[in-house]
Structures are given as C-alpha cells and as structure tokens.
C-alpha cells in the first residue's frame, strides 16, 4: 500500500499587499510530496517558490488553501503552536547560512535543542552526532567567522538536523557557495533523503543543483508549470 504524502497542498493561494497593489505570489497551487522525497522547486525570481517553501515550513501563512504536513494542517495552527511544531518537525537551511556570529559551531547547532528540555548530556550527544554527519566535528569550537562558506552551510545543515526533523527545507542553499562547497552541501542533502529518509525540499535557480533531487517542480507566476499534484 502506497504511503500517504508527507506534504499535501491543495489550492494554495498567497496574495501580498504591496502598497495599493495586490501581488499574487501563489495561485491555486496543489502539490503532494512523498516521504523521503528530495524535491527541488525551480523557477525565475518572483515565481513564488520561496513563498511556497515558507508556507510548507510554517513560517508564512497562505491567503487561501490548505497545507498539511505529516497530517497537520499548518495553516490552522496558532502562532505559538506553529513555533513548537517547527522546532520538532522542520529543519531550515538558508542561502546566507544565518548562523549566530557570537556562538561557536557547536553552540549554533545546539540552539534548537535548548527548547526541547533535553539534558545536557543528551544535547551533547545529538550535537556531536549532527556535526559528525556533516564532517565538522573537529570545527566544533570555531566561530562562524573562522569557517569557510561551505563549512558554515554544513554547520547550518547540522543545526537543521539536530532535532531529527522529518522535513528539511533549504532555500537556495548553494547560492553563496563555490562549486566544490555546493557539491558537498548538495551531496549531504541527497544523502539525508536517501540514507536518513528525510524529506528534503530545496529551492534553487541552478539546474545542476536541481539534478541532485528526485523530482523537480517548476513554478512560474505563482503557478506550477509541470504536472499534477503528485
């Protein structure tokens, strides 16, 4: 029997108000994403791919439509419940890494765990394991400014993984990296999907990066241009 999709999006519409003008970022988008899938969202700037990613990750709300992630309608959750839900279920990887500059690599990775109530010993274990997974256990005490761009992004991936979420969302994770670092990061995301059974959704402009995914969805002017929901 086929597994139900991890992400189920139905008739999702997002309209922004910019001064006097309404801008439709997403228009009636419906999409299913299966468990362990490595989905890449492609499209030109302003096509709505980041907006779609933000709504799936629970950091933005649609104007209309439904977005269920692992059976939870994230559009119906309160602000506070949504924050809890994100902490437990979503790992974020941003284009500009967004590490806290005053914290070491170890502390940056530990940050989401401060909300979980885990003991210090368990936190240490999980942080070590996440840093080992991205190959940066030996850089644990380095501050972000002491790391290369690729290393910073790998720390960000470790931070996204440390709470063991099922969903990893990555918004142009290779946009600020050289080609070798980009390959490394994309390889890690791919292995998370293949070996760790994580669902990875990645926004990218780069067809080479998109090639790492198991499926690519194109968006243009807020609408899907290739295919049905699944």
């Amino acid at each position: 029997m086929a597994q139900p999709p991890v992400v189920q999006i139905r008739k999702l519409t997002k309209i922004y108000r910019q001064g006097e003008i309404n801008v439709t970022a997403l228009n009636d988008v419906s999409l299913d994403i299966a468990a362990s899938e490595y989905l890449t969202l492609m499209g030109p700037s302003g096509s709505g791919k980041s907006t779609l990613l933000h709504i799936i990750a629970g950091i933005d709300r649609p104007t209309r439509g439904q977005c269920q992630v692992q059976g939870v309608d994230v559009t119906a959750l309160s602000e506070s419940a949504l924050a809890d839900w994100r902490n437990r279920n979503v790992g974020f990887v941003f284009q500009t890494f967004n590490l806290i500059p005053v914290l070491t690599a170890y502390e940056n990775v530990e940050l989401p765990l401060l909300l979980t109530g885990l003991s210090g010993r368990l936190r240490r274990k999980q942080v070590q394991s996440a840093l080992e997974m991205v190959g940066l256990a030996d850089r644990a005490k380095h501050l972000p400014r002491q790391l290369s761009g690729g290393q910073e992004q790998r720390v960000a991936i470790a931070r996204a993984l440390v709470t063991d979420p099922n969903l990893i969302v990555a918004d142009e994770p290779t946009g600020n990296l050289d080609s070798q670092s980009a390959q490394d990061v994309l390889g890690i995301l791919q292995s998370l999907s293949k070996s760790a059974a994580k669902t990875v959704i990645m926004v990218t402009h780069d067809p080479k990066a998109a090639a790492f995914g198991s499926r690519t969805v194109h968006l243009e002017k807020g609408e899907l241009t290739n295919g049905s929901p699944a």
Partner: protein
Amino acid sequence: MTIGSFILKNALRNKRRALLSVLSVAVSLFLLVTLLVALREMTVPAEDVRAAQRIAVRHRVSLANLLPARQLSVIQRIPGVAGVTPFTYYGGKYKNEEIPSFAQFAMDPLQMTNIFGEAKVASEQLAAWYKDRRSCIVGKLTMERYKFKLGDTLPMTSMLWPCDLEFKIVGVYEGTPDDRNVMFHHKYLDEASGNTGMVGTWWVRANSLEEVPLVVERINKAFANTSAEVLAETERAFVMSFVSMWGNIKVFIGTICSVVVFTLVLVSASTMSMAIRERFRELAVLKALGFQRRELFAFILAESFGLAMTGAIIGVGGAWALYTHANINQLTNGFFIVAEVTPRIMGMAFIVAAGLGIISSLLPSLAVARTTVVEGLRTLD
C-alpha cells in the same frame, strides 16, 4: 550552552557598546545618588529624640532681627520648658579667611549638655569651659580640619558684630548632627559688644516629645503683641526654613534628577533598539527554529535588564563606597559633614535601573513581535 550564557554572549557581542552602555547607566545613577544624597543632607536634619525635643525661637520678622535678652525669664517660666539658652551667631572669620568657614555660637555653657544632650564633651573640659569666660569648645571636625590643639587661641573677626573676639580652646565636642561649630560664652559676647541686651535666637528643650507642640504654642503666645514677637518652631522646621531661604532646592534638585532619569531612558532605549535592530535577522532565525515571541521578549528583557543592573551596581555601589569611606567633610570643603547613602536612596536608584531595563526592552520587543519570520529574514545584515 544555557539560555543564560546565550543571553550573556548576545549582550557582550559588541563589547565597546556594552561597556559604554553600562558606563552611561553607572555614571548617571552615580549622579542621581549624589543628587539624592545632597538633597537629603540639605533638607533632612538628623533625627534624634533629643533633637526632636528642641525648639528654636527667633524674631517673627526675620532671623536677622535680634531678640531682647529679657525674654529669657519669661521662657524659663513657661510650663514644659526643660531648659533654655541664648544662641547667637557671631559670624566670625578665622585669621585671614575671607568668609567664615565654620560657625561660632554664643550660648549659656551651663545649658550645653541640657539642650544639646547628644554632644559628647569630656567632663573636665566642660568644667574648664564653665570657668573661663573667654574659652570655647570646638567641634571635632573643625579641630581636625585646622589641626587645633587644646590651649590654642582662635582670633576671630566678626562680620556681624562690632567686636573682635579671641577664644581659648578648652574642649572638643562631638556626636551632634554638626560637629563643626565653636560654642562660647554669651557673656563674653555681651561684654565685648557693650551689653546690648540682645540675643540672636533662643534654643529651648521641652520636657518631652509630646509637650513640644504645646511649648511652641505657649512661647508664641507669650510674646504675641509685644515689641519683639517671636516665631517658635521645632528644630526640624527651623532647619527646613533655612533651606527654603535658598529657594525651592527640593524642586530644583528633583528637576535635575528627573532630567537625568529621562535622558538615561532615552539613551538606553535608543542603544537597545539599535542593538536589536542589528539582530532582526538572527531573531527571525530563532523564531524559525521554534523560539516563541515570549522567549525572544525574555531574551531582550534579560539583556537590557542585565546591562542596566550592571550599571546600577557600579554606579550605586561606587557612590556608596565613595560616600561611606571618603572624608566628605574634607572633600566638600566643609559643605557636607557626612553624605549618607541610605537604603532608601539605593533602593530608589535600583528601581530606576530596573525600570530603565524594562522600558528600554519594550520597543525592540514590540518590533520583534510584530515582524514575521519572513520579514525578518529579508532584513539586511
């Protein structure tokens, strides 16, 4: 890492700014404490049961008008009066000083311990003073300041009386609210000034605290409609009226205190807003990671409160250490004898600091709460 160490790292991320913020709070609170201490020293006379029993009697028109010495016997007969002494300001300059740097009062030496019971004078010194009409006793602070010794002579030139006097120091007193004065025989002043039959004020002690209002009323009534009507009032009221001669110092200093606090709030709020504005993107990331608005508010509040309190500890603690251990009399050239940083003043300063910490965190917290994760992530570093 703990939440506490995370807050500390954030607060100290820009060490120079944190240091300057702490110092601005510290210096302002030091100033605030100094003003409050000065205000207290100027407006609140030392409270003591004996002091509370004392009544000052002066001419109703003004302190500059003298009173007839014949009033003494009338006051002595008033029920409730335990003792009375003439108390006349001589206004003498010591040697070549341009203005009087310590006060000299002519009084009845036999009433010294009766009226000013808190004054501690060795009995043999007191006896020597009683005996010698030209002798005087000097407050301990003035003795120390001028390095006077028993037996020294004090040549004084009055700015008020048409006679120069020379006192022989036979004793030292201490333990009064103002241990800077020189007390000498009123008879010496009478003789030297040609027996004018006038005194500056009367200083009276009532039998008990309860009788003070009655004695005040009786004295005022006794001289009503005479050629020298008097104004009798408690020592505290008398000192307060002195203060009021300088203008409304309380309002003046209070206004400066308000300006200090207001400026401090503006500076701290702006510093805190700046510090948080720079971290909007990071705070958005924290929100994305699952931190709630209330947790972010707690971070900002703790940081702001921590900086304000550190400043308070340095500023208020510094003021306490300075005013407790330094020789304030020497430091202020005799203007203040002591400067006591009372628990009430310290409490007020810490309350100001706490309020400062809270108020400074409100606007940035509100801005962070209003900003969505997506808006925050779009903020440029």
